Structures are given as structure tokens and as C-alpha cells.
């Protein structure tokens, strides 16, 4: 989907979320802790939100579609994948180019 591709290519770290999703909030907190400022896009606030959700499913996200984390334009996954990567030490490698910046 155009909107998603544009967002993920223009920004290093993108989290697609919903405004009521507390796990999305937790993932954002984790990135902030690692001095990354992700772009958090609440799809429930977007008129095309439904389309975006479907597009996320097509890209490989399983229900729930959010949080959907993209790093460097590539889909990393949801909370599970982010946590696994972080605990294995691989997440820091992925986010290195985007750490310590004030904005992406």
C-alpha cells in the first residue's frame, strides 16, 4: 500500500499502532529507552485505517495487526519479534543508524 510504503521508506523506525493499544505503547517505550524516536502512526486515526490494516496483514502481520514495527523499511514484526530480537542482542544492531537522533 502506497501510504505504508511511503512511511516506512521515509522513516528509519516506524510503529503502526492504534491509539488504544497498550502493547504499542510498550514497544514505543522500549525504543525510547534505546534512544530511538520511532514514528508512531495510529491507523485508527486515519480515514484509510481499515485499508492500512488489511495491507499490514498482506505484508505478513498476524492478528492483531498492531504494533507493526518497520526498521530501515523492512517489516520486523510485532511485540514478540521485537522482544526476541532485543533479548538476543540483535535489536541494537538494527537500530544503530537511528539511535540518538532527535527526529528520524
Amino acid at each position, binding site marked *: 500500500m502506497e501510504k505504508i510504503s511511503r512511511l516506512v521508506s521515509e522513516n528509519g523506525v516506524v510503529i503502526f499502532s492504534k491509539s488504544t493499544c*497498550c502493547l504499542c505503547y510498550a514497544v514505543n*517505550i*522500549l525504543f525510547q529507552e534505546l534512544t530511538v524516536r520511532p514514528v508512531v502512526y495510529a491507523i485508527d486515526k486515519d480515514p484509510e485505517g481499515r485499508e492500512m490494516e488489511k495491507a499490514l496483514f498482506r505484508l505478513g502481520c498476524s492478528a492483531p495487526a498492531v504494533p507493526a514495527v518497520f526498521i530501515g523499511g523492512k517489516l520486523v514484526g510485532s*511485540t514478540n519479534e521485537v522482544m526476541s530480537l*532485543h*533479548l538476543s542482542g540483535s535489536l541494537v544492531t538494527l537500530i544503530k543508524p537511528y539511535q540518538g537522533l532527535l527526529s528520524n
Partner: protein
Amino acid sequence: MNSSHTQYISARDMGVYEPINQLSMFADFDENGWPDTSPSLLVEVDTKLDNQSEDTSHETAGDSIKYEETNKRVDKVLRRLAQNREAARKSRLRKKAYVQQLESSRLKLMQLEQELDRSRHQGTYIGGAIDSGPPGCSATMNSGIASFVLEYGNWVEKQDRQICELRNAINADLPDEKLRVLVNDGMAHYSDLFRMKAKAAKADVFYLMSGMWKTSAERFLLWIGGFRPSELLKVLLPHLDLLEQQCSDVYNLIQSCQQAEDAISQGMDKLQQSLVDAVAAGLLGGGSYIPQVANAVEKLKPLVSFIDQADHIRKEILQQMYRTLTTRQAARGLLALGEYFQRLRSLSSLWATRPREPA
């Protein structure tokens, strides 16, 4: 006319109502032990029919009367058949309900016996597990939770046995291959626990959040339905005898674990806050709150995902340690972990049975 048994099948199949053949079916029908009164009826009807065939010289009027009477008899038999079928059906349903009741009572009895057993060992009364409802309310526990409590009891017993084996193996200085088997068993055992918990979370997420299946000291240290992962690592650290090249990996793991934990904790705080806001929304004291409560139900749904995440982190740190450590270190680590939880359980019962100051 075909032979009786095949006719029975085809009558049923086609839904065709063939009175004479229903009679022969009835003669075979003793499934629920109903007294078989058919033979006499059969004889009666047969006699009637025989009489009828003999009375060929009777007037038409007489014939039709006899025919009507025969019909009435047949009707009576059919009615009796239908009543018997209905009674048999009801009997089967009652039996089924009774058996189901027996099964659930049996399960509850097993669970109570298990608790009693454990109480004797630990000296504590794990009352909360039996009735998670308000005091005085005799709500039967959800069967998913009842079986979880039973399985957990077995899990703890098996855990205690495994810890013993590990201790003996390490003291006896067994070779690595033998230790590796025990370590793999220990890891698999923890996997079993997480599997059980995932099932239980779907049955009753609040029960899991409360930690009611654990002892009191463990519950005091509860973090989202289980042990706190960072605490676990800190407990393990002094017992591992790390090699230099392992140090940075382990310290990085401790740090990322803490960060993951903090992130999930903050997400959980947000969830609690949104729940409070939903329940308290609108005018309190107005008397009507159905929409607020209905809205709050939505806020609770992500709770299962949070417990999922917390257990996911627990699983991952165990896996990471398993990958980083040598066999011997892993064996010592599992032993230390197991004994730590045993001490917590023991503390719980010691606390419960301590001499109280007089009131």
C-alpha cells in the same frame, strides 16, 4: 413383504410408517430395558386379523367394525411406541446429565485431595484456589483453571524430583553428556509450564494475574502472572562462574531484560489507567452504568496479550541463558533456580505457621 429386519431399516430410511412392521421392530426394541409388552399385543392383533380372515361370510358392516377396532388397537400400539421412544430419549438425556455431573465432581474431588495433600506438606491452607469468587459465594471454579491447578501440583512435584537429580549429578561430578540430558529435561519442564499457563490464561486471565496457584511469598514477588525475569537473572548470576568471554553477553542480557520488563510494565500501567478511566467514566452515583462497564470489558481484552508477552520474555531469557552457558553452568543454574523457588515456597509455609502474638 420383505423380512422384518430389512423392512425396519427401509421404513426408517424412507420415513414411511408401516404399522405391521413397527410391531416387529417393537419386539426387538429393548435398548433401555423397557418391559416388552408387545408379544401379547402382537398376538392380540394377529388373533383379530386371523378372526377377520375366518369371518369371510360376515356382513360388510361387521367387517368394517372389526377393521375399525383393529385400527384402534394398532393406533394404541403406535401411541405406546411413541411414548416409549420419548421416555427412552429422556432417560438417555438424564443419564448423560448425571454422568457429566459425576465427572465434574470427580475432577473437583481430585483437586481438593491434591490441595489437602499439599497443605499437609506445606502447612498452609491454599483456600483461595478453591473459590476465587467473593467469600460466601460457592462458585465452582472454571474447569480450565481446575485442571491447571491439578497439573501445576504435578509440575511442582516433578520439579522437586528434577532438582534432586541435578544436585546428585553435580555432586557426583557426572560427565557432561549425562548433565546435558538433565539440563534438557529441565528446560523442557519449564516449556511445559508456559504451555499450561497459556491455556489457563485463555480460561481465566484474572486467575493467572492473581498468581493464586502459587504460594504467598511467590505471589508477593509476582510480576504479570509469574516470576520477574530480571530478578531471576540476578539470582542466577553469582552461581554461574562465568568465563570472561561470557560476561558481556550475560550483562547485556540482564540489561535488555530490564529494559523489556520496564517497557511491558509501563504498558501495563497504561492498561490499568485506561481501565480505571473506562469504569469511572460519566457520572458516578447516577445508578446506571451498563455502557461504562461494557466499554471496560473492551479494555480488559488485551490482558491476555500482556501475560503472553511477560511469559514470552521469561521463556526467551531462559533460552538465551541456555545458549550462552556451558552444560555444567546450565546445570548449576537450573539447580540454583529450582532451589530458589523451593525456598520461597518453604518461606510461605513457615510464615503461615509461625507462632502468633496473643491478641
